[in-house]
């Protein structure tokens, strides 16, 4: 009797361990016929299911573009909601093929956690949100405040550093998901809610009385957010990296979802031709066909269109391009050339 119990345990543990091994991610994804993409558990504008259960948002658009480039179908994505805590384990264990979950690119995540950040799709920084009736106008006045933080993020460490270097004390309230943070913050169980400024704006947009809350002017950290993959599979890393770059380059070259077909017929600009596959065979170099970038752009348009549609100034979230404008417009968004 005892033996059978033991063998059961062994079998269960063995199947867990088997998940660790993985070879060519591109082949795996093609074989599965779908891309497993890790996203947030729900942050409007970045990744959240709409009323019909379809995921949409700024990060979701990256997943869909990669799926379109690799599989030819923007809907062949399995969205795996991850929390700040579970996301890295999910990626390291192979449960997801890529992570697009407003994740900050840091040294230790890149080097020690063995991930490859393929680029930056949003330049962000950590901010603070407070109710206006609190009467606070600067983060320097927050000595002794109770602060809600999403646990398992760089936010937690930035916050500790910021308060320590300014000689202030605070009471941290660690919270697992954005929804729980909203509940506590709205009920006044914490004075301040801190996370990336874009996340704060997105959260504030969902409040019933959004005007009663404000963001403090201080941005206390650099938070370059971008999609990431596991170390060790350079081909797959390249595919995700250059899909993102294709979206960015498309905006730079003026390729939009409206004129995509026209451009794909052939233009005078050799870079557009190389990108859209009418000249040369860039896609073949990493195991895709010639039209991979065209399909990626066709899903939601170029980087600028995706930005405007999901988090731009005309949406409830209302973020200005700011640092995230193209380099020609004074921003930091810059793609290496397609050559």
């Amino acid at each position: 009797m005892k033996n059978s119990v033991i063998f059961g345990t062994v079998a269960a543990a063995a199947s867990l361990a088997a998940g660790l091994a993985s070879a060519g991610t591109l082949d795996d994804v093609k074989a599965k016929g779908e891309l497993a993409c890790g996203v947030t558990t729900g942050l409007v504008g970045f990744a959240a299911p709409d009323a019909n259960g379809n995921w949409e948002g700024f990060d979701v658009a990256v997943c869909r573009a990669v799926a379109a480039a690799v599989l030819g179908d923007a809907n062949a994505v399995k969205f795996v909601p991850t929390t700040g805590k579970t996301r890295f384990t999910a990626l390291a264990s192979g449960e997801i093929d890529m992570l697009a979950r407003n994740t900050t690119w840091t040294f230790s995540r890149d080097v020690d956690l063995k991930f490859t950040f393929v680029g930056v799709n949003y330049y962000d920084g950590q901010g603070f949100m407070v109710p206006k009736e609190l009467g606070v106008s600067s983060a320097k006045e927050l000595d002794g405040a109770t602060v809600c933080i999403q646990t398992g993020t760089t936010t937690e460490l930035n916050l500790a550093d910021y308060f320590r270097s300014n000689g202030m004390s605070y009471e941290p309230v660690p919270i697992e998901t954005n929804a729980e943070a909203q509940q506590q913050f709205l009920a006044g169980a914490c004075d301040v809610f801190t996370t990336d400024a874009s996340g704060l704006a997105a959260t504030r947009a969902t409040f019933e009385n959004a005007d009663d809350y404000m963001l403090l002017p201080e941005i206390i950290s650099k938070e370059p957010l971008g999609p990431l993959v596991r170390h060790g599979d350079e081909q797959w890393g390249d595919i995700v990296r250059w899909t993102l770059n294709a979206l960015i380059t498309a905006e730079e070259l003026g390729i939009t979802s409206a004129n995509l077909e026209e451009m794909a017929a052939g233009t005078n600009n050799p870079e557009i031709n190389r990108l859209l596959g009418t000249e040369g065979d860039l896609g073949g170099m990493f195991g895709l066909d010639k039209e991979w970038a065209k399909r990626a752009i066709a899903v939601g348009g170029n980087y600028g269109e995706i930005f405007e549609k999901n988090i731009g100034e005309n949406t409830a979230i209302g973020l200005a391009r700011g640092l995230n404008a193209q380099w020609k417009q004074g921003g930091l968004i810059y793609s290496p050339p397609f050559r």
Partner: protein
Amino acid sequence: MSMADQKPTQSFNLGMLIYDTRYRAMTIQVVALILFMLGAAWLVNNAAQNLAALGKPLSFDFLSQPAGYDINQKLIEYTSQDSHGRAALVGLLNTLLVAFLGCVLATFLGVIIGVLRLSKNWLISRLMTVYIESFRNVPVLLWIVFAMAIFIESFPAPRAFRGDNATASMVLNDSVAFTNRGVYIPKLVFDNGSMIVVLVFLASLVGIWLFGRWSRKRQEATGEILPNFWIKLGIFFVPAIAAQLVMGSPISLAYPELKGFNFTGGLHLRNSLIALWLALSLYTAAFIAEAVRAGIMAISKGQTEAAAALGLRSNRIMQLVILPQALRVIIPPLISQYLNLTKNSSLAIAVGYMDITGTLGGITLNQTGREMESVMLLMLIYLAISLAISTVMNIYNNSVSLKER
């Protein structure tokens, strides 16, 4: 083995390992053990290889690196510059705190509810049935989240206490504040000379114990019963209060005051601790109540009737006759309920309570990326806690179990 003795000349051959009932059991066990060890070795090897392939060999160095994050409830000194190891220790103490408080309250409630469920009063026994069924049939995680939600939504925020037209006020002579961040109560401040008061108090505890022994002997010898409860209560309070007055009140109270964003000066019982504590206790109390009921019902009715025939009143029957015997039945399931409560406390992160799972298995794991090491340490720690609890409770169980002579 008399059969075997009669034919000792038969020589041993390999087939006997399978066909001879004397050896077969041993053979099966040896084969199973070898297979099990092979399986375990394969698992360990597989994990080690995969970790090496990921470039993350097993290493516990991260425990001595600075943690970098803050923890709200800390029973020992801790800053964000301390090591991950110390952060884990802070979490461990938080786990032990909530487990201890939970076990005490769950036992207290469980015994009362279990006894009341057997009450002859229809209303009371039905109410207790409703309590037990509703608590033990809903997952404890939901109770924890529910308790926290009630806390956050029903109590006022600290800022409601501020200003001339404050909508909330402190209770008990302005000494206790119920807010949605927790309860702020006065805390004891120990000045010079308070050591003596504490010593007097400890001495009076010893006094209570000595008095109890003396009083029991006296009762056995003479049959007279002293008003034990009141005398013990007197010994508990009078000497300590006298010492406090004689020494010029060295122990004083610091009251919580609204200062800046929060109440300061008092003791802050965080909403996460209270919600987790209450939810775990109420949930586990329902199981303990059933164990208590089973224990009491295991004592034959003749015992009650015999005690009643001797002229004992019903509460004395319960105290002197039923419960001491019922304990033998109650304690073994009680041990497993204590273990359950302790393990369920790992759900603490749902309400942001920083227990060992929240520190070592949460933030530390996430910031260092050492999943394997952290989870193994966590399992070891919970194993050690559980084994310690069951050892202590088994010693107690042996002390109350039936001594056969």
